[in-house]
């Protein structure tokens, strides 16, 4: 694995190459690409062309008719997606999107300008699907699809996190995520994908979650947090699994079961549900909120997502509650009901605690945990002690997908400000709809891609450093499991001293539970504000 340069050694150069972009071949430099999908993972889900290969090799072991497959795939997708068809035709190359991409800002590579990323595909489209391109060729911006072009696609479509920041600024709403999604779909047709996506997909398909946690282990891991919660609060929570007849099915990304700091968010959920006496169940079969199928193809997204409704139906719950996760919520908001609905076996979600009817989710029947909690707080159903978060000075990172694929801005802020006394916003060019990606989304959160992740993470981390310097911020809250996994690394790299937390970890800290012991630490075991001294006395 390539060594990542130190922050002060990392060269960020926005100078353009001497050669035009069509004449500048792609160079596979370690640290800037992800390892290819392992054959066994492709086989589990039946993806084409499973084999051992490496992007560094000359020969990528493509099928003989790879070109035919790709062009036929493109034709099919042009007929299926108006988005693609329109986006191929109408870009005027005004360049408004160019410096909106975190990867362009952090790498200076011109092909990371969203406009050029799209031109990689558009140039091939022109050559094979437009008269002007066929006749005029390069003059019309058209070029032949070659192996080198395919390699370029692989490099740059796995250097886009599908965060949609560029689409916000585009005067025609051209969405690079859409181009990347379809570009990756095409690449998958000939067996070009990355293991950090295909591995979790295979895991999720067979075991129910990206991490491949088997049912008994899943139960074990959650029960471990039951002990942890008891140690912090003195309250023993009692989660149930695969329980038929529960009112609510709760689904959250498996990352939060597995690693810090997501696990503290998970503890927050468990504490909240216990305190409410919520009639809910976990599922080991649908134990994944996220969907790496979304980073493979529309079909794979549907295949993985299907488990949510299927499990809700099997268990006979009334509705589904979803945890804090980014792309999970883009899939739920913009795809799930269309792909796997109608969910007519479920009921329109109503909060059993407040009686609030979630009209905005009446068709999907799936409610975001932060909406749910915001409603609880608004109705005075939670006893909260925000001073238990006084050791934290918190800012909030809007995760890309809930921001630009949903519009989820006020609910998390309301919750955070109800459970924390010290909250500070980052600059407006980096929050809400203009938020920056963590730099590692869409399946790019692997170690071999670390240099590029740190580059892509620069804009977000830089805004964090700004509030760190200005307001002594030491914690960044977010509602995305990938954020929780990767921001830790990029903040440590660019803004050391700023930690990462889920919103429900903060809720868990502040939540005053019936019969709880006096809390001296937060969920992480860190002393609460004012408790540090008593620690010293003990020593």
């Amino acid at each position, binding site marked *: 694995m390539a060594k990542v340069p130190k922050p002060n050694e990392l060269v960020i150069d926005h100078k353009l190459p001497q050669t035009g972009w069509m004449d500048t071949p792609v160079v596979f430099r370690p640290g800037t690409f992800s390892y290819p999908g392992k054959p066994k993972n492709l086989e589990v889900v039946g993806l084409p062309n499973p084999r051992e290969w490496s992007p560094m090799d000359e020969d990528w072991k493509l099928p003989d008719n790879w070109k035919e497959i790709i062009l036929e795939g493109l034709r099919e997708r042009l007929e299926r997606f108006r988005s693609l068809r*329109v986006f191929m035709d109408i870009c005027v190359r005004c360049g*408004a999107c160019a410096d909106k991409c975190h990867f362009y800002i952090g790498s200076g590579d011109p092909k990371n300008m969203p406009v050029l990323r799209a031109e990689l595909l558009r140039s091939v489209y022109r050559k094979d699907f437009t008269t002007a391109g066929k006749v005029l060729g390069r003059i019309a911006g058209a070029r032949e699809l070659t192996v080198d072009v395919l390699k370029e696609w692989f490099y740059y479509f796995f250097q886009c996190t599908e965060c949609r920041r560029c689409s916000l600024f585009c005067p*025609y709403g051209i969405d690079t995520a859409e181009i990347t999604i379809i570009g990756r779909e095409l690449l998958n047709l000939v067996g070009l994908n990355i293991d950090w996506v295909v591995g979790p997909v295979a895991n999720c398909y067979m075991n129910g979650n990206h991490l491949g946690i088997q*049912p008994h282990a899943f139960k074990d891991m959650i029960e471990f947090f039951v002990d942890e919660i008891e140690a912090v609060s003195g309250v023993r929570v009692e989660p149930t699994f695969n329980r038929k007849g529960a009112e609510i099915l709760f689904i959250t990304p498996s990352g939060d079961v597995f690693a810090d700091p997501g696990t503290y968010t998970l503890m927050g959920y468990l504490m909240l549900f216990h305190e409410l006496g919520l009639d809910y169940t976990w599922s080991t079969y649908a134990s994944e909120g996220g969907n790496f199928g979304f980073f493979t193809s529309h079909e794979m997204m549907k*295949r993985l997502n299907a488990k949510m409704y299927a499990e809700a139906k099997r268990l006979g719950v009334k509705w589904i509650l979803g945890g804090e996760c980014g792309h999970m919520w883009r899939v739920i908001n913009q795809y799930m009901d269309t792909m796997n609905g109608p969910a007519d076996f479920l009921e329109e979600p109503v909060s059993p605690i407040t009686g609030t009817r979630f009209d905005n989710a009446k068709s999907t029947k799936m409610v975001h945990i932060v909406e749910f909690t*915001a409603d609880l707080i*608004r109705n005075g159903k939670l006893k909260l002690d925000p001073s238990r978060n006084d050791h934290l000075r918190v800012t909030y990172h809007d995760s890309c997908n809930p*921001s*630009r694929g949903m519009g989820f801005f006020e609910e998390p802020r309301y919750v955070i400000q109800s459970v924390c006394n010290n909250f500070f916003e980052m600059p407006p060019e980096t929050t809400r709809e203009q938020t920056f990606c963590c730099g590692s989304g869409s399946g790019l959160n692997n170690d071999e891609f670390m240099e590029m992740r740190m580059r892509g993470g620069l804009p977000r981390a830089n805004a964090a450093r700004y509030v760190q310097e200005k307001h002594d911020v030491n914690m960044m809250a977010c509602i995305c499991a990938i954020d929780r996994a990767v921001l830790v690394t990029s903040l440590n790299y660019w803004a050391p001293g700023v930690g990462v937390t889920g919103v429900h970890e903060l809720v868990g800290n502040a939540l005053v539970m019936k019969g709880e012991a006096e809390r001296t630490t937060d969920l992480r075991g860190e002393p609460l504000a004012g408790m540090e001294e008593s620690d010293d006395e003990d020593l």
Partner: protein
Amino acid sequence: MGIKFSLTVVIALVLAAFLGVQAAGMTYLFGVIIPYLAVFIFLLGVVYRVITWARSPVPFRIPTTAGQQKSLPWVKQNKLDNPSSTAGVVGRMLLEVLLFRSLFRNTKFELHQGPKVVYQWEKWLWLAGLLFHWCFFVILLRHLRFFTEPVPFFVLMTDRLDGMLQLGLPGVYLTDAIFILAVTYLFIRRVIIPQVRYISLPADYFPLFVLLGIGITGILMRYFLKVDVVRVKELAMSLVTLQPKVPDGIGVLFFIHLFLFSTLFAYFPFSKLMHLGGVFLSPTRNLPNDSRMKRHVNPWNYPVKVHTYEEYEDHFREKMIEAGLPVEKE
């Protein structure tokens, strides 16, 4: 390369019209046949393009949400940037089409020592783009005075307003001046901003040069090398009444102007200029964000292979029983 090529083509077009009319006297070709052909290609081409777009379905509801969603009753929704109703979408589209809402958000990034990322105010592209499009629209509207008899009041009014500065004789149109400035700005920006130059294709310079050519010939005709306006109107009226007749004595400059415009018109459907139509069909802008409230149907949704719960339980049954997890089949 793009600049030289496009400029050469436009100069060749000007020369072709000049020689064709001045030397070969082909006024009927340049005054009647080509304009008719251009209109024909334009209409057919645009309809074809739009139908091609419209024939591809919108499988998923994928608006780019740019404001607060509709959620709990006490959370204030941003109805224009994140609409959940048709009225909201109409509002969003109006803002987009008439005022270039998205481009108005534009910022410019700079990397300072540190590294420190800063975002600068940058509304020039938005301003020049907006001015160019609106001026072009007003100029087209004004040109209706050649094609109508009597001239409708809104055309006369536009004319009056546009010329309200009353500078010189004939009065200078504000839109003429702004049009040239804006197009020039758009060209210069394309050349001097390295990134924009790097992404530019001949197809980006060509329309700018044609537009400049149209603007310059138009201004020359009106203010400097005057052509016989009465006869131009005679030609224009003969074209719209489908009784084409080219009067003698119209200056060659007019034919160059008309030829360039015909070129633009015929080129339109095959080029990026179709963004005029495309913006209305962009799924990230023209859909409400309501897919949790109302099911969006994908016409080609097909069944897929899934790993069912039964298969899952078969695989893990013993481990599940041992862990005390409920199972369907003991």
